[in-house]
């Protein structure tokens, strides 16, 4: 029976069976109807030694191509400091589970407290939870928070300038849960704020959700929106890139009640889409409607400062079908990732990341526009992501780039390409990108 993950020797098994009082291990399964016992072979290969496994993954990995990334769309190629994976590999962190026993989980509890503090600082909101799965599911949960907060209203307005991938998830959750979702149209790349008052006037809107930056990378102007929404006794939620919030006007400054988004931009590896990190932060009046785990500071019997899971009465294991959400496991280790990242970078580092990304993006935009072959799709302020329009064949351009080991911008159709530039890209890489894009076939 024994292998390196299963330590049972034959004599162990014999002694254990004797204590239990049965003759064979199969006897422990004697209650299972014979018809359902699996007698076939699993469609799996033979077990591999570590040498073989390493070789296997090396060969599998060789079928991927590591590219110079100029695309975003919800996953950004930011710099990941070397320190982080080393600390994440402390197995006291990653082999623990949810900190149910605070006496032996102060490490986890404290980093979550620090994480919540950092998310609160970045968003400007009073309180944050211990993390969600990703930005899309966090946004869907914000929709539920809004509906749960108003006793009778069941409609949520969501801007169609939120990323399509987030919208897809929000639509799915809304359809099954029975939330009426209305998508606010876009006008020249931004939320058509003029369309909102008429919807609010119907009196059935629980909340409004808008993005910053939006799906085209545009930093939208939400002046007056919060007042408009609050006057209608509805809530304002903003889906925001937490890295960008080191420089951009925060959800709190826009007057939002809830902030949410994806924390991948806090230096997380692309990793083919995950694990990343969802976050939710809110004003304290919304605290008891916030889903997920929350860590609070308290003191122990001897007066020592410590941290515990708190406000648990909101959660599914207590409230069952009356809970605000079903989330239990979250992305805790990625919350630690974000915490260490923000600790290393600090406010200045995050500002520099944004400055380099923004300058690089504007340099690329400028070079493309000056060629005469591209123009900006929208005349609106942007940070690190932007859309250009061209009459050239986008597919051909991207094919040419791919041949040179570059992942070009995302093809949005109709000659529109969306680029993202991070601090990892260099001026030389951008020059090379532009040269290739302008090349005649």
């Amino acid at each position, binding site marked *: 029976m024994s292998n390196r993950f299963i330590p049972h020797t034959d004599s162990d098994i014999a002694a254990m069976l004797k204590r239990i009082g049965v003759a064979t291990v199969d006897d422990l399964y004697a209650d299972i109807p014979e018809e359902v016992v699996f007698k076939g072979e699993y469609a799996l290969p033979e077990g591999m030694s570590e040498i073989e496994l390493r070789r296997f993954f090396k060969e599998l990995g060789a079928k991927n191509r590591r590219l110079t990334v100029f695309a975003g769309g919800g996953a950004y190629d930011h710099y990941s400091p070397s320190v982080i994976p080393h600390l994440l590999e402390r197995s006291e962190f990653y082999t623990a589970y949810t900190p149910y026993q605070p006496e032996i989980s102060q490490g986890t509890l404290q980093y979550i407290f620090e994480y919540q503090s950092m998310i609160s600082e970045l968003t400007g909101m009073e309180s944050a939870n211990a993390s969600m799965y990703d930005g899309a599911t966090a946004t869907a949960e914000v929709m539920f928070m809004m509906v749960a907060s108003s*006793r009778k209203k069941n409609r949520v307005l969501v801007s169609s300038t939120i990323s399509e991938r987030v919208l897809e998830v929000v639509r799915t959750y809304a359809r099954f849960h029975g939330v009426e979702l209305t998508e606010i149209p876009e006008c020249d790349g931004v939320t058509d704020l003029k369309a909102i008052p008429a919807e609010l006037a119907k009196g059935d809107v629980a909340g409004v959700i808008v993005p910053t930056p939006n799906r085209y990378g545009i930093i939208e102007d939400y002046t007056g929106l919060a007042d408009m929404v609050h006057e209608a006794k509805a809530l304002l939620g903003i889906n925001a890139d937490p890295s960008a919030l080191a420089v951009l006007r925060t959800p709190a400054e826009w007057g939002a009640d809830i902030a949410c988004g994806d924390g991948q931009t806090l230096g997380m590896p692309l990793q083919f889409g995950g694990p990343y990190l969802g976050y939710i932060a809110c004003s304290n009046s919304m605290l*008891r409607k916030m889903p997920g785990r929350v860590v609070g500071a308290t003191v122990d019997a001897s007066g020592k400062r410590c941290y515990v899971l708190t406000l*648990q*009465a*909101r959660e599914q294991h*207590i*409230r069952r079908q*009356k809970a605000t959400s079903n989330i239990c496991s979250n992305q805790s280790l990625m919350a630690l990732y974000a915490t260490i990242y923000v600790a290393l970078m600090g406010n200045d580092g995050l500002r520099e990341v944004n400055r380099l990304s923004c300058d690089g993006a504007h340099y690329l935009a400028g070079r493309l526009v000056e060629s005469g072959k591209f123009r900006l799709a929208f005349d609106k302020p942007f940070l690190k992501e932007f859309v250009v329009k061209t009459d050239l064949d986008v597919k051909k351009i991207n094919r040419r780039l791919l041949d040179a080991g570059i992942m070009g911008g995302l093809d949005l159709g109709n000659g529109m390409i969306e680029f993202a530039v991070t601090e990892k890209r260099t001026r030389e890489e951008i020059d090379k990108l532009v040269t290739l894009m302008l090349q005649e076939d």
Partner: protein
Amino acid sequence: MSTVKDDLRYAESHEWVKLEGDIATVGISDYAQHALGDIVYVDMPEVGDEVEAGEVFGAVESVKAASDLLSPVSGTVEAVNEILEDAPESINADAYENWIMKVKVSDPAELEALLDAAAYAKLCENE
């Protein structure tokens, strides 16, 4: 053991109610506060809200339990006990003194369907 006050009516969901004129004062029973343990939060309705008999009007939370509050009567919320916002534990100290809301009832006859003290005491014994 928990006390049951004679002059009140009780719901099976452990709320008590006292009718004076057309104003019903509503709280949770001593038995309920015992069962919950240290109360840390009371979610109360807003003045002016309409409540319906048997429907949820709020919730009480302890560290590891939460319980919806069901209104024993129908009507309009006239007042909520603001003391509970900062001191929810008052309910643990005296569940009958520390009411949760006052309702202007629309149908006083609804009270007749509720339990009297003796019947409620018996219910608690059996739980």
